[in-house]
């Protein structure tokens, strides 16, 4: 990572780009409000903020690319030349020549119908009208080579779809740099990429920046990237610039409460695993008391003196006495986690996420479970009262007893067998809840061929355990989860759930899913039927459940209301359609739906990757709470090592359909045996929470 | 090929100077074999200019010479024809007795399935007398043979060996075809080496224009020079145009609604008479046919026929009488008469409208008539092949030779066309046809006409109107028998 660390430019130099009092409004709705910041030559400035905070709108407005729907006022000066209101011809002379842009999704941002080389050559000739075709082609190949494309001559003749994501992004950079501009505005250039690839692309961008003496405005929502690459950072919230300063200073201790909260809510390697993440509203409330979103967007708001340590304090201030008592290694941070604060926090809604601010309120579920049941090894909700004693899963490798949440049905404590990369099988006493052996899955491809997505995967999950699955995109994580859920039939291998083979490999016909396994989906927008009420969606799980099917309508409604309350939503939402719910609320509904049939295993396939950082923390907290309360076993899937580390006790790393490494969380994180795991770890740089 | 020719554009004035003419046809030319078609209005109008026959029917409906210069009846069933020695085909082959013999053989051979064959029922064979003399032998005396022979177009035997006469032509007539594609326009050019009298018009375009509106607007815009068979409802509009000469006459074709007397309700003569009383021929003729024709006096013939009787009178419009007759026959409000009226769609001038008007008037006396509009071929199939005519059927009939016997023969008991078995009528007609005395014959035909009127095998209507229009500068006499022949035309200033 050190190689990528930027060299700061001369701090006294004149600003190359000055944005002053910039306003951007779409159809009268402001997207950017009074933004003022600047970039000096050779400087990398990060523009951060949650989704919709106006980052892209700002970037586009600089070159007048905001589109016709937008009204732009204020001032943008490039070396003193005013760009707002400049005529097309003047802007055209600047676009691509002096200021270039790099967009997020290079597959779309590159013209899919034209050869990559032609596109770059065309860009060159746009500003070098005297250049011949041959010269432009040469230039294109040269740029491809400089951005790190192998065999650039050949690849110049290929089309964008023939490139991998990382390669495409390099092409995009080549396209932007071909006219040697002074400034590049890069709008989330690496967001869609895998962590490892992301690191490579960023590294190359920074190298080129240094070679060419470029100024770069890097739009991102990833603090890891900011810390790694940027000299200075501009934080936006609700269209306003709430904070700017050097990267180190802002990350270490932003003066604006929102910056603080944002930094605090991202899972960090410094965090104790499984600890409760402070959410943005919590942090803000901790710092300022109740504030609405609009107040929070005030750039002049400052963290009150003396409140420096509050983010950490916020973690401790919540919740009536729930502790992670089941954990083998208790830490102070574990004494966080709190239901029961829903009412208190409901007011902190503002622009963040209305009901998300309401923490889990499982204790209020009205089923008689004592509020303090978390103190001991929890016995689940009242329905489960009387189910067997709490059990502990013992991982064979770690040899350390991980007290997991309780499970129902008198499950026995189990020492879990893992068939890891070495194929070593450790001895086990009682059966694990789920055990997968030598799983092979393929998808139908063209012409009757099948593409194998998963080959020879084996692992097991003990009752009450959270098992993490990480790996790059396309490595087969979702495929495994779909097989476990019963949505897809494997080619071969065994999937034992409660000792029963539910995989159904080799049999014909559609598999009937097992209600004991439920799933939380990645995309909260796609996973709720817009035509059915929330109550109906959740209730269906009861209707078809062998034991709950006999429930009367009223009883079913009651249970749905209870579930909604448990995930921190207003029970009245049962009659609402998902249309008016925010992403975080939808994900809570998705979780409630998964809980309805009282599953023993919950699969969470990237449950937060579609959510904003500020909401992500809330959902992660909810999942962790439920897992603990209900003693659920969980298969937690993510491509983000930090998140997996935060949630899981054991972790498997997948690559190209195989498990390359499996083991105890700490062992994987601290002593990775596999090169790929190491690369992954290195790439997933996370912010150190220095403010604690 | 159809699209290449630009002849036919331009105005009547330019066409007058280059001696060309554009004729609008309502139906496409379907075949070029003159012996395998009976459509006078389209196929034969074109082909009669390309092929010659032994004799031809002149515009005044008399028979005149063509390839034969003279003829006489050497025996009651033997006619002798002397051929024009100059007569020759376009490729130089002389048109001699052998050619006639071959053509008659081709025609009479049933296996050839030629459509013209049925018009020559009495013709047995041709016998060569010498190179330019030929005898035609019939199976008995046939007064109508000459008329029929005006339809016998002569093909070259040699040429036919290696050409398909359905798609190519090589005749001995005044014109040759220069451009033709199935269904498309046809272009003719006068032959330089024609052995007869050279026609005035050098170039002819037949433009296929099925839409009545298009034909009329073509005339008005000067796009077309000649159109025959126009709708009477357009008369007024056409007459107001100074550049057009409109000719109006009765045709030799009588329009009526045939009644199926062999089965169904029309077996009852009271019903047949009732429907005759129920229809107001006068008002239909006035409104739908623009008053161009007068209702038929209850006859199957038009006045052009030899044998037309002056004494019959038509059924007056008398709906009460009709209802009375129907009631007698057992039909009334409780038991309405239901019949089907078949019309060949688009085949006859105003046919569909007339059928609708008739139906409406029938309904006023309580007859529920349903119109069944079918394509002509389907209509003919049911009528002649399947012998399954519906209760009523709109039809117009004519006999090319304009002999009463010819047309009446379609109504005798054993005719497949008749759907009527009436001994008295059949007897009168049969006797008349062999009767040589003119007065006696006319008397017999008058009996037949009276019998037909009384028995009403048809619902008598009116003659089919003949309306033709041509450019004012064009000298052309419209014919009552549908033919449109460019050889009979000339531009006024040009000779």
């Amino acid at each position: 990572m050190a190689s990528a660390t930027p060299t700061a430019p001369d701090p006294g130099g004149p600003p190359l780009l000055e944005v002053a009092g910039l306003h951007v409004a779409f159809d009268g709705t402001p997207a950017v409000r009074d933004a003022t910041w600047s970039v000096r030559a050779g400087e990398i400035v990060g523009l951060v903020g949650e989704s919709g905070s106006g980052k892209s709108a700002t970037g586009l407005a600089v070159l007048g690319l905001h589109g016709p729907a937008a009204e732009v006022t204020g001032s943008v000066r490039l070396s003193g030349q005013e760009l707002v209101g400049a005529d097309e011809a003047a802007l055209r002379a600047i676009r691509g020549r002096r200021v270039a842009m790099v967009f997020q999704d290079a597959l779309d941002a590159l013209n899919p119908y034209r050869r990559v080389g032609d596109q770059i050559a065309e860009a060159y000739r746009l500003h070098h009208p005297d250049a011949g075709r041959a010269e432009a082609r040469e230039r294109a190949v040269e740029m491809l080579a400089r951005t790190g494309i192998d065999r650039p001559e050949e690849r110049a003749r290929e089309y964008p779809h023939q490139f991998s994501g990382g390669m495409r992004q390099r092409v995009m950079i080549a396209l932007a740099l071909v006219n040697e501009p002074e400034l590049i505005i890069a709008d989330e250039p690496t967001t869609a990429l895998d962590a490892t690839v992301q690191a490579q692309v960023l590294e190359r961008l920074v190298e080129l920046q240094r070679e060419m003496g470029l100024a770069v405005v890097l739009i991102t929502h990833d603090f890891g990237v900011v810390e790694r690459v940027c000299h200075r950072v501009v934080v936006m919230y609700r269209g306003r610039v709430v904070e700017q300063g050097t990267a180190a200073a802002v990350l270490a201790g932003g003066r604006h409460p929102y910056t603080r909260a944002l930094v605090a809510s991202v899972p960090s390697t410094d965090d104790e695993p499984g600890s409760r993440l402070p959410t943005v509203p919590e942090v803000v409330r901790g710092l300022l008391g109740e504030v609405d979103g609009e107040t929070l967007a005030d750039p002049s708001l400052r963290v009150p003196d003396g409140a420096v340590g509050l983010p950490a304090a916020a973690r401790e201030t919540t919740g009536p006495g729930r502790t992670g008592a089941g954990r083998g290694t208790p830490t102070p941070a574990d004494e966080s986690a709190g239901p029961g604060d829903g009412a208190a926090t409901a007011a902190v809604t503002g622009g963040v996420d209305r009901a998300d601010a309401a923490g889990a309120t499982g204790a209020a579920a009205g089923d008689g479970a004592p509020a303090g049941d978390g103190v001991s090894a929890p016995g689940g909700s009242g329905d489960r009262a009387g189910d067997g004693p709490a059990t502990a899963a013992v991982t064979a490798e770690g040899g350390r007893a991980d007290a997991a949440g309780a499970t129902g049905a008198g499950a026995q404590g189990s020492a879990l067998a893992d068939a890891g990369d070495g194929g070593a099988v450790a001895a086990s006493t009682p059966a694990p809840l789920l055990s997968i052996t030598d799983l092979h899955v393929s998808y139908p491809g063209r012409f009757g061929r099948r593409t194998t997505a998963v080959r020879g995967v084996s692992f097991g999950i003990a009752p009450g355990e959270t098992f993490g699955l990480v790996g790059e995109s396309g490595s087969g994580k979702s495929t495994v989860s779909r097989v476990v859920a019963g949505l897809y039939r494997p080619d071969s291998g065994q999937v034992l759930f409660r000792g029963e083979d539910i995989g159904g490999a080799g049999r014909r016909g559609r598999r009937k899913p097992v209600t004991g396994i439920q799933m939380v989906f990645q995309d909260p927008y796609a996973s709720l039927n817009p035509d059915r009420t929330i109550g109906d969606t959740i209730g269906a799980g009861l209707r078809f459940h062998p034991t709950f099917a006999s429930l009367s309508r009223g009883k079913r409604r009651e249970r749905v209301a209870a579930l909604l309350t448990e995930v921190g939503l207003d029970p009245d939402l049962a009659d609402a359609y998902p249309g008016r719910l925010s992403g975080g609320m939808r994900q809570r509904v998705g979780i409630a739906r998964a809980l309805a049939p009282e599953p023993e295993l919950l699969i969470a396939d990237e449950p937060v990757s579609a959510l904003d950082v500020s909401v992500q923390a809330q959902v992660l907290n909810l999942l962790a709470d439920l897992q603990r309360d209900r003693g659920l076993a969980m298969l937690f899937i993510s491509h983000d090592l930090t998140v997996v580390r935060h949630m899981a006790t054991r972790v498997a790393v997948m690559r190209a359909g195989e498990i390359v490494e499996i083991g105890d969380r700490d062992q994987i994180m601290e002593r990775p045996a596999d090169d790929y795991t190491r690369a992954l770890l290195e790439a997933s740089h996370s912010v150190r929470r220095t403010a604690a | 090929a159809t699209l290449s020719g630009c002849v036919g554009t331009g105005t009547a004035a330019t066409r007058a100077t280059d001696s060309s003419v554009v004729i609008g046809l309502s139906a496409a030319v379907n075949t070029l074999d003159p012996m395998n078609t009976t459509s006078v209005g389209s196929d034969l109008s074109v082909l009669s200019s390309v092929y010659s026959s032994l004799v031809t029917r002149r515009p005044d409906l008399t028979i005149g010479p063509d390839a034969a210069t003279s003829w006489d009846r050497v025996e009651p069933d033997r006619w002798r024809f002397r051929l024009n020695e100059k007569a020759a085909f376009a490729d130089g082959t002389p048109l001699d007795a052998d050619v006639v013999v071959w053509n008659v053989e081709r025609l009479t051979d049933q296996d050839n399935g030629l459509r013209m064959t049925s018009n020559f029922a009495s013709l047995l064979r041709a016998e060569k007398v010498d190179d330019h003399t030929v005898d035609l032998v019939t199976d008995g005396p046939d007064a109508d043979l000459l008329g029929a022979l005006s339809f016998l177009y002569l093909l070259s035997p040699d040429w036919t060996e290696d050409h398909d006469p359905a798609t190519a032509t090589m005749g001995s007539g005044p014109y040759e075809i220069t451009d033709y594609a199935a269904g498309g326009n046809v272009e003719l050019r006068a032959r330089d080496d024609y052995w007869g009298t050279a026609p005035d018009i050098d170039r002819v375009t037949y433009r296929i224009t099925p839409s009545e509106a298009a034909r009329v607007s073509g005339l008005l815009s000067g796009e077309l020079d000649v159109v025959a068979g126009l709708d009477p409802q357009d008369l007024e509009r056409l007459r107001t145009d100074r550049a057009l000469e409109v000719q109006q006459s009765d045709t030799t074709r009588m329009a009526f609604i045939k009644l199926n007397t062999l089965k169904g309700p029309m077996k009852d003569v009271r019903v047949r008479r009732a429907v005759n009383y129920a229809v107001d021929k006068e008002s239909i003729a006035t409104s739908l046919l623009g008053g161009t024709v007068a209702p038929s006096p209850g006859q199957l013939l038009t006045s052009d026929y030899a044998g037309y009787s002056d004494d019959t009178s038509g059924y007056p419009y008398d709906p009460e009488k009709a209802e009375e007759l129907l009631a007698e026959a057992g039909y009334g409000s409780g038991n309405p008469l239901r019949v089907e009226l078949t019309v060949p769609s688009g085949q006859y001038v105003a046919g569909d409208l007339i059928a609708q008007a008739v139906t409406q008037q029938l309904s006023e006396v309580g007859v529920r008539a349903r119109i069944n509009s079918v394509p002509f071929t389907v209509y003919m199939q049911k009528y002649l092949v399947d012998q399954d005519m519906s209760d009523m059927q709109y039809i117009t009939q004519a006999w090319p030779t304009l002999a009463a016997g010819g047309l009446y023969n379609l109504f005798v008991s054993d005719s497949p066309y008749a759907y009527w078995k009436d001994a008295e009528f059949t007897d009168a007609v049969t006797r008349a046809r062999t009767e040589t005395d003119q007065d006696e014959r006319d008397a017999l035909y008058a009996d037949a006409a009276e019998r037909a009127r009384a028995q009403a095998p048809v619902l008598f209507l009116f003659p089919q109107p003949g309306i033709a229009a041509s450019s004012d500068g064009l000298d052309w006499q419209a014919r009552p028998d549908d033919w449109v022949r460019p050889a009979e035309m000339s531009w006024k200033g040009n000779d």
Partner: protein
Amino acid sequence: MKTDTSTRRRRFNAGTAGAVVLGIIVLLTLLAPVLAPHDPLAQDLAHTNAAPGEHGYLLGTDQLGRDLLSRLLYGAQTPLLVGVLAVLCGGVFGTALGLLSGYARGWADQLLSRLADIQLALPAILLALLILTFGGQSTAVLVLVIALTGWPAYFRLVRSRVLALRTSAYVEASRLQGAPAHWIILRDLLPGVRGLIAVTATLDLSRAVLMEAGLSYLGLGAQAPAADWGLMVAEGQGRLLSSWWIAVLPGLCLVALVISANLLGEHLSRRKDTGGEPRRALSRISRTRTRSAA
């Protein structure tokens, strides 16, 4: 801000206008027996081809002296009846097959898809001509022919939407809840294609009306002396020169009917967020419009 609302209002008005005109046409057709000043079949041979206003005929008469106004009032009966029935048949059939085919996949799906392909390979008007000529003409056959040429539109749209939905997270969630296939089809998939079907049906109605008119024009639909707009255009075509109203007025009525159905359909397709799919599929799938408009 201003432009936004005004655009929205204009669209809204166009859609409403379509619905209103459609409603008026339906109403007038239903009330024809009350409203028509004359029997649509009654002839007045003394006053044929009367111009609008002449002899007390508000919109004139045709060649047989029939009152054009009365005929126009009655003239939408066949197109509407045939159109609605054909849309119902084609819609229900196509949707049901599309749902089953898309959800169950397998050989039946393959078979049906090929069948739809083949259906598309036969230009609709030709198929209709063929069946009507050789299979006899009747309203029932007419409805069936139009429905037959219309079902692939529904089938393809519904099927492709179902194919996308069946692997969607919410359908998978229902499966995980243990919901049986019929429940998923009725509760998850059908609502998902409802908007699509509504839009398709509206646009299909205009297709069906156009096809009925085209076939009547060719003499294969409604039969004389019935009052039917398409047939009336054909009947009056020969009289354009002297009595334009006989052909032009029914033609304009037809245009009004089709435009209103199209406006409504367009409006729905925008509102229901169907991404213009039905319009595309219909113009792709049902050749009728093209042919009859061609």
